[in-house]
């Protein structure tokens, strides 16, 4: 009888440990910052010479991916409607690194010709207080045109925004 009780107690302990571990892990997650709306500023590339099509593709893909990731109110650079929004988060992006690469080299050699771009993303409140800063990179290694790197960057940047900000009513 004692053996059965002991085995039952051990089983209970095991179950408790397995059930508690995800709960503990959730506690360690960073708290999300409230963002009623996001405003995306045009990509800046003062230090690095970035072709216009890359600049525009980064900006357009970023807006599209943020909208896809559940941010229902994404304002563009200069949008007057954003001025009256409370809890507005502004995303400033600055290009820190760029390697143009070559699609031909990728297709012919497979191993060379990768395109990569590194962008410093700074999320600020509307008064300019920095909320989050992070470098995000975009790459195209094997298949696709060079501009596909901008799509890769946008997906990663949207993921960063999704992990650190929440829209009231969405969660």
């Amino acid at each position, binding site marked *: 009888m004692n053996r059965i009780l002991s085995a039952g107690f051990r089983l209970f302990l095991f179950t408790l440990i397995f059930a508690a571990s995800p709960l503990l892990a959730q506690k360690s997650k960073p708290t999300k910052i409230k963002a009623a709306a996001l405003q995306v500023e*045009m990509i800046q590339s003062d230090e690095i*010479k970035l*072709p*216009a*099509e*890359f*600049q*525009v*593709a980064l*900006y*357009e*893909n970023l807006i599209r991916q943020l909208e896809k990731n559940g941010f229902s109110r994404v*304002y*563009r*650079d*200069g*949008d*007057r*409607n954003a001025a009256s929004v409370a809890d507005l988060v502004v995303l400033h992006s600055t290009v820190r690194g760029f390697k*143009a*690469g*070559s*699609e*031909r080299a990728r*297709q*012919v050699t497979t191993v060379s010709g990768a*395109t990569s771009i590194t962008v410093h993303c700074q999320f600020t409140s509307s008064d300019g207080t920095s909320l989050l800063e992070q470098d995000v990179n975009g790459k195209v290694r094997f*298949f*696709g*045109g*060079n*501009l*596909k790197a*901008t*799509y890769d960057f946008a997906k990663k940047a949207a993921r960063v925004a999704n992990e650190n900000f929440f829209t009231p009513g969405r969660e």
Partner: protein
Amino acid sequence: MTSRTTTVLVGVASFFAGLVIPVANAQRASGPVKVVQLTGLVGVKDNAKGTLSVENGQLHFVHGKASSDVSAASIQDIATAADSQRAIGGTIGLMSMAAPYGGGRVLSLFRTKIDTLTVQYRDADGGLHGAIFTMPVGTSEVIKKELVAQGAHSTSDKEPAAASAASSSTPNKEQKQ
């Protein structure tokens, strides 16, 4: 003998015509130009094929039955660049990658030159948009000049080849090296 000479003459004439006609087409001024809208126009899908023209102070893009207009006055910046794309693209180009003995890799060496046109404009609320088009060689500069003449702004007046270091978003485009 006469027929042989005639054949040679026709052949030579065709050869020179083939060289001259594309140049003449590239320099053609106004009229709709066949383009691919890579991204950026409101209500138009990415990689949409259509025609682009400048009419009555508007950049006019027609895709099938739908059309999209951007006022030249709302354009803040226009940039042109030279680019290239795979001569054999699309599904056949993708399937060729699986060809034995590197046949697909050889095909990817054959490329055609294209121009890219990047336009930044503001909507009625002041929001900034960007649109990217690819088009036949020599046509982007013509469209840019027409837009500037009708009130569009351009911050850079560099030559297309000098300004280029990029590629387009479609899987078969590459920068000019």
